């Protein structure tokens, strides 16, 4: 099995990250925005794993698992917030969530 070159992995990660960033910046639905954030996190994970493998280290792998765990917790808290905001405002659209401005 030939190894996938590092450049490919980094390119994929960069694409994923940009995709997630664009999602966060452009989508109006908070749920979609959260999902985009997950994509960005996973892009970073991919970078870590890629470098780890290329250099034959283990720290990157460990860190990736760590990030997956934290991301799960983050998603739980984020979704809970979205849920309670939805109960309050009957919407998950970010344009309607500007309470601090008023």
């Amino acid at each position, binding site marked *: 099995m030939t190894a996938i070159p590092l450049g490919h992995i980094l390119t994929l990660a960069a694409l994923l990250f940009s995709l997630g*960033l664009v999602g*966060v*910046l*452009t989508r109006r639905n908070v749920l979609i925005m959260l999902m985009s954030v997950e994509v960005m996190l996973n892009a970073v994970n991919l970078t870590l794993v890629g470098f780890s493998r290329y250099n034959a280290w283990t720290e990157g792998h460990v860190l990736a698992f760590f990030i997956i765990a934290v991301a799960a917790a983050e998603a739980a808290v984020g979704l809970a917030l979205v849920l309670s905001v939805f109960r309050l405002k009957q919407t998950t659209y*970010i*344009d309607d*969530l*500007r*309470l*601090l*401005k*008023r």
Partner: protein
Amino acid sequence: MTAFSFSPPALLPIIVLLPLLGGIINGLIGKRFSRQVVYAVGCTPVLASFLLSVMVFQGLRGAMVTDPSAAFRFEAYHWIVAGNYSFDFAFLADQLSAVMLLVVTGVGFLVHLYSTSYMDDDPGIARYFSYLNLFIFSMLMLVLGKNLAMLFIGWEGVGACSYLLIGFWFKDMDKAEAGQKAFVVNRIGDIGFVVAIFLLLAYAGGSVDFDSLRAHFSDSARAIDHAPTITLICLLLFVGACGKSAQIPLYVWLPDAMAGPTPVSALIHAATMVTAGVYMIARMNFLFALSPHAMTVVMLVGALTAIFAASIGLVQNDIKKVLAYSTVSQLGFMVIAVGAGAFAAGIFHLFTHAFFKACLFLGAGAVIHGLHHEQDIRKMGGLKAKMPLVNITFLISCVAIAGLPPLAGFFSKDAILAETVALKPEAEKLAGYYEGGFKRQAYAQAGVAGAEAADIAKVAAAEQGIRKQYIESVEHLGMWRKVAFALGLCAALMTAFYMFRLYFMTFTGAYRGDHHTWDHAHDAPWPMGSALAILAALSVVGGWVGMPFAHGHYNFFYHWLDPVLARGKELIEGELTPSVEYSLMGLSFVVASIGVFIAWQMYGRGVSEAPARIAAGMRPVYNALLNKYYVDEFYHAVVITPLRAVSRALFQVVDRVLVDLAMVRGPGYVLVGLSHLGRLAQTGEVQAYLIGTVVGVAALAWYLI
């Protein structure tokens, strides 16, 4: 003297602190006490202080048997120590302090006793006695202070108490303002006093302790060779004395101070506080004696004040105003004395004046009290019948202040006038003292620094010239003594006249007020009466301690003060021969008699047209006197109005614009404006913020990579 079982120095702090304790108790919880308890708490500490003062006095007499210049010192602790400067919290009871101690606590107690009756219908009685006790405390600090700093604490304390008591009935705006006036005018004098203390600190070895100051200025090797510096310090001290002792130009507060309760006028504004300036100058005699020029200024200001105030007193119609101007005038006499170098005579007059002036004021208070707060002597008359005790005590003190023998005022006033012409500064001795300064001046004048014979001769010649010039200038001052003497004599004449005018208009003739008041008029109740009787008795015998030639050539009072005033006496020479002394006594007697006689002619023989005729004949003079020479109006126009205008301008420009707007509100406005700008960025849209973050991170990455 038998052995004393107490130690007099240890009594000093107790004497001082007892009245403070009384003041604190009455001030804090006096409101809950019944009147009797307030009286007891107010009077007892002062009586105790007086008895302890007598013990200190006796102790001092005992100690003087072995050491003629004995004095009691009590050093509590070092108060301030900074570098070379140090102030101790310490008391000194020497012969001068002992005299003041007896006067302050003695007259103070009588006034307290009198007040229990005079203030018997006043609701603020606890506050009154609290202030009065605090005053006694401050005054004792003043006379017992061992250094100028301690004296200054008392000096400010009595000023504050005076302010509180003048404005005691603060609901009356005029009275509150009179208190304020007294306070402000005294502050002006205090500036001079404080600057003088600083100069002394700088020039006299870092201590303002009286003992060390005296040692410093007695030692010609270490002495300041700058005659002008000493003169400046003396004049600044005198500015302070002018404020406290009501001399021209700062006397204006004292007549207004009569707004306070009458016992307060007797104690503070006649017997004790106002004499603080005289006391201070006598205390600093070793310094003043070094500057004949400053002394002459002091003497002339005193003489002018004496005659100026006496002339105003001639025509006043308010019983307390007459006494107030009389006080200013008598203070002028004391200042003449200390200015002429007759320190003992000045203190002697202070001592006798305390008795008869307090008696006069308390008598006036009894009249006012008896007539339901009537103060206008034109509405009095014939009170002899209603108030026999007040009448006799008032008459005695009038005779005493007028200067008729053998009452107290005669001896003291005569001593002042006699010594004013008899003494003169020892110019030769003083010149020896300032030798260093002359030498330096001579070098500067000759313009040489070399050690050649010709140069030395040149310098010596210049020095001789400067020395001669100095001695001549000191001797020229002698003529001012004659001026002061003449003014003093005129003032004495006026004193006799206005005092008896006051007496005749109040106590003799027909009553001129309304009948209701007359029917209710009553003699003094016992606390007032006993205070009056004691003070009247002292007005009779008080002068005898200073009687010249009473025991051969021995004057007890002067001899007593010798240890304190020795240094001043060294630098001032002159002695009265008995013949001169007796002829001057005769002159004083004649002058006083003339004054009394004129008063009797004009006011004592029933209704007379003479006063009205004379007033009409000299209308402008009369008006000027009646309106106190328009000095208040003058100050108002020249000092107060411009000061207010400047203050207003400063308020409008500096305070409102510069401070309020530019420095306080300005930064606030700028911040609020900037915040408005910043607010624009806060859209509330999460994604807008995120774009900002992303762009920021990208820029940072770009910059770093």
